[in-house]
């Protein structure tokens, strides 16, 4: 599921991963390493919320 950073609005999309941080496409949000932070603002994963997908 996609997750949005409530501080800056960055959306983590498992389909994309976070290639700059070495997170492969297909990595679930829950499987991100503890050291992972929001690439745009540096917030930890507690600052993310699931995005309810329309029609999902």
């Amino acid at each position, binding site marked *: 599921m996609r997750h949005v950073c*409530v*501080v*800056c*609005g960055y959306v983590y999309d498992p389909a994309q991963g976070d*290639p*700059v941080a070495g997170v492969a496409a297909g990595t679930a949000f829950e499987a991100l390493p503890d050291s992972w932070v929001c*690439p*745009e*603002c*540096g*917030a*930890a994963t*507690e*600052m993310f*919320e699931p995005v309810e997908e329309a029609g999902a």
Partner: protein
Amino acid sequence: MSARHYAIVGAGVAGIEAAAAIRATDADGRITVLTDEGWPYYSRIRIGEVVDGRALPQALALRLPAWYDEQRIALRTGVRVEGIDASAGCLRLAGGEVLGYDALLVATGARPFVPPFAGADLPCVRTLRRMDDAIALRDVVPALRRAVVIGGGLLGLELAVSLAGAGLGVTVVEVADRLLPRQLDPAGGALVRELLGRRGIAFVLAATVTGLRPDGAGAVVDLADGQALPADLVLVSAGVRPVTELAAGAGAQVARGIVVDDRLATSLPGVFAAGDCAEHRGELYGIWPASGEQGKAVGRAMAGAPVTYAGTVRSATLKVSDIGVFTMGRTGDDDGAVQADRTGDDYRRLVRDAEGRLVGATLVGSLAERRAILVAMMAGKPYPA
């Protein structure tokens, strides 16, 4: 018909989100992004991490080099745009090159505002906005002992944390009588102060800087009440001003920022503006999420899609370093019955109306309750349930 050429000045979040949105809307157009910085798109919010060595500059990049190729975006770093000729549809670049465009985005951002006090031009006075500012600070701080940060807003506090992390003794000077006055009540502000104080940061509140005097390689910061703070480094964090002169020089309407309509179009045909440089419906946002949303909207508008940008809702959630801050609704003392409590390093303040419904909430520290509070407030339900 040959492909349209889109030119974008500025490779910040507004410029890059716009480039991506153009590409998603117009598969054939040529896209050129120009920046006077030597770095491709990076997280400006996080450059404090470079100052104290938590991150290397290249670790703050927000796109892989391959992304620009895949999106067919020509990124030209280290190139300053010196003029716009809107009637001819071309840019004048430093060095004399002329670059034609069919649609132009001005996404030139903002620059720090330094109040005109005496000594503001001393070499020890710095600001932090660009990656090169952060690298320059990183390189000088190991030789320094004491820093004064002028401005105790969100950014000033972040910078204070970075400098303290780099080993400096840091004093924050703030004109208001408490920290984050726009976001927090006195008790919440006091907790933030206490948490940062434990990291060795000192505060002088309700303080007005009257001027700086040179003192060796550093300066003495004079305050209106007579205090004098010696510093090897003075970091000014007193707000930003939109970078408007490029657009203004071409004749675009400028108020405090470059004036744009709901399509992010300026008063000049074919010229758009977005991000920290733009003023929309009288608002200057100066924040990342708004710049990103404007970038996405303007990219679609430039590529001809119907767009109505109605503004950005300011996030209720902030962080100061790793301290969470959440405020929502009506939080004044007169807005209802106030219940404030502190558990360890977490502070919670709830405001309820006569019927017991939650009308406002403030959290500092842990934001674990944030979601439940939002739900209760939206639904007009009692909280805790």
